[in-house]
């Protein structure tokens, strides 16, 4: 088991290195191929060629790509100094560089946005887990009945309607028309928990609806399959109550695929829910990335991408380890 964990950790680390290489290549090689100069992007349209040249040297863009990558990795691990001749700016680890637009360090920017994204992702996750799994179980137990149809129709609607539709409709109805929820700025949880929930609720629901649909369908399918298993018949033959048969014996098996996709979905969302954050103007990682893309702010895009892939790799790792806890058959191999 220890061996397995170690092996998985090493793989995860290698994966992150590989992702960093690919992202780095995409963001620094492609501009080059397209004859766009990162140094020019950095200094802005009004700069003189001399300024551009100075910036190029300061950012190390004159060096070969592998040297640049090496410096980038060094910056991530131990920090990095930017030497522009007269002044040296130190960027402490993990250093993703400076924003081309605001000249602020990327890492604190990301950290600053993270609580918003986490708030959005976790709140939505609770809703979609309860709604999706609950709906799926009801649907499976009432197979073919009215409640099954209703849940599956909602699921179909949920999976078909994009967030930028449901989000806007919700806002129009609940915020502007009926004034049940407030619009306006994001509120920190520590400042005002109720205000925080009030502001985020519609975003949670819109995002959760999308995911709950998938979970309801998956739960329904797995539950129906599991209820046909021999060990469920055995559980009934023991004289267990139907509630225990479904709630304990069947749910245990249904949990496995749910945990898998839940881990991956959550990992993906922690990298930023781009559409939802945009529609509800939540200042999270997703919004940061979109804004950065619009402004061709390469260091932020690079930072956000790496940040997101880090969460996905970690989520994968956690899911794999959890698997060993959930399914005893995985433990030995």
């Amino acid at each position, binding site marked *: 088991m220890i061996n397995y964990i170690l092996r998985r950790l090493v793989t995860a680390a290698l994966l992150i290195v590989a992702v960093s290489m690919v992202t780095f290549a995409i963001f620094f090689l492609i501009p080059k191929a397209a004859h766009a100069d990162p140094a020019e992007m950095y200094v802005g349209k009004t700069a003189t060629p001399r300024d551009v040249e100075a910036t190029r040297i300061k950012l190390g863009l004159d060096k070969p790509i592998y040297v640049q990558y090496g410096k980038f990795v060094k910056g991530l691990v131990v920090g990095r100094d930017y030497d522009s001749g007269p002044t040296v700016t130190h960027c402490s680890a993990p250093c993703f560089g400076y924003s081309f637009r605001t000249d602020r360090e990327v890492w604190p920017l990301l950290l600053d946005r993270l609580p918003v994204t986490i708030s959005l992702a976790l709140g939505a996750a609770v809703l979609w887990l309860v709604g999706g799994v609950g709906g799926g179980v009801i649907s499976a137990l009432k197979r073919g009945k009215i409640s099954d149809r209703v849940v599956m129709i909602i699921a179909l609607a949920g999976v078909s309607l994009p967030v930028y539709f449901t989000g806007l409709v919700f806002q129009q109805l609940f915020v502007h028309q009926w004034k049940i929820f407030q619009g306006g700025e994001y509120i920190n949880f520590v400042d005002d928990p109720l205000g925080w929930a009030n502001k985020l609720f519609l975003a949670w629901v819109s995002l959760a609806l999308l995911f709950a649909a998938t979970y309801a369908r998956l739960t329904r399918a797995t539950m129906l399959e599991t209820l046909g*298993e021999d060990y469920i018949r*055995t559980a009934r*033959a*023991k*004289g267990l109550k139907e509630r225990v048969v479904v709630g304990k*014996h069947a749910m245990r098996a249904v949990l496995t695929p749910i945990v898998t996709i839940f881990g991956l979905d959550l990992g993906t969302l922690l990298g930023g829910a781009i559409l939802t954050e945009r529609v509800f103007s939540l200042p999270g990682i997703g919004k940061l990335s979109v804004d950065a893309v619009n402004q061709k702010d390469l260091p932020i895009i690079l930072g956000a991408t790496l940040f997101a892939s880090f969460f996905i790799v970690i989520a994968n790792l956690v899911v794999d380890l959890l698997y060993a806890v959930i399914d005893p058959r995985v433990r030995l191999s």
Partner: protein
Amino acid sequence: MSSSLLTDVSPTPGGPGSQPAQSFLDVRDLRIHFNTDDGVVKAVDGLTFQLERGQTLGIVGESGSGKSVTSLGILGLHRRGSAKISGEVWLDGEELIGASPERVRLLRGAKMSMIFQDPLTAMHPYYTVGAQIIEAYRVHHKVSKSEARKRAIDMLDRVGIPQPQRRVDDYPHQFSGGMRQRAMIAMSLVNNPQLLIADEPTTALDVTVQAQILDLIRDLQSEFNSAVIIITHDLGVVAEVADDILVMYGGKCVEHATAEAVFRRPEHPYAWGLLSSMPRVDREVRDRLVPIKGNPPSLINLPSGCSFHPRCPYAERNGIPCKTVEPALAEATPKHGVACHIPPAERAAIFKSDIAPNL
């Protein structure tokens, strides 16, 4: 033989005037039908038998003859929505088909329990063997976990699992096939059931383990004086353990007698076929086994008349009634029931000339 094979219980299924049973287990005119899109599947159609404590009944038949459906029906494991069940099942003077599901649940696993085939799929892969036995015990006994655990270890020891204190915390996949079946038996017997139904308990096991498992069931039966039903398609198994044999074909009983009578002097052509297709060590090796031609009938569209007639080599010879009239179970000799239109004298002649020499 203490179990009466054929009683003249008039078929008034579920009627208010029906008499309480005399036997420990008394199944009367049991019918289990399933509504499907293709039509009504008559999985069990009018089955009647009795079984006493301490006795073993072997139910024999091909796949789809209704053996397993019968046992699940007795335990009340069919979903009431999909299965239409009629008839009566009396267990120790209590009728089960008309009883509330909650009442049957309380009996299930306690007074009557079942050993399933293929314990790899029949045991929950995510729980330890011990946890599953403990759970089975605690459903019906208000005891602490540690007490139930002691009981589980005791049961594992009883069914011959070495180092039960250690193995109790293993998962089913860590057991070998034979061990799993033993654990399954331990789980079924943990509440000292008075009726034990073993559904193909040895199908997935090799022959030596098969014999051990059958010995085990027999030992435990004599210890608790339970009634046992062994369901199998393997005549070798019932030959070893059964007192009585009930041969099922197409959801009906076609022959019912003591094990000795069925092996020595079988009456039904289907039983002849079963016996002729059974390998035996005391037979000449050069002799070929004689298979029964054709396939088991569809339970949606049973053949008219005797449902075995399309496969029966003697139906043509006997003529019309085989194809049009359903034969009733009648006593060929005392306590030997058979459902066949061929006149007893002719049956005896056929058996003597065609069948017996090849057995």
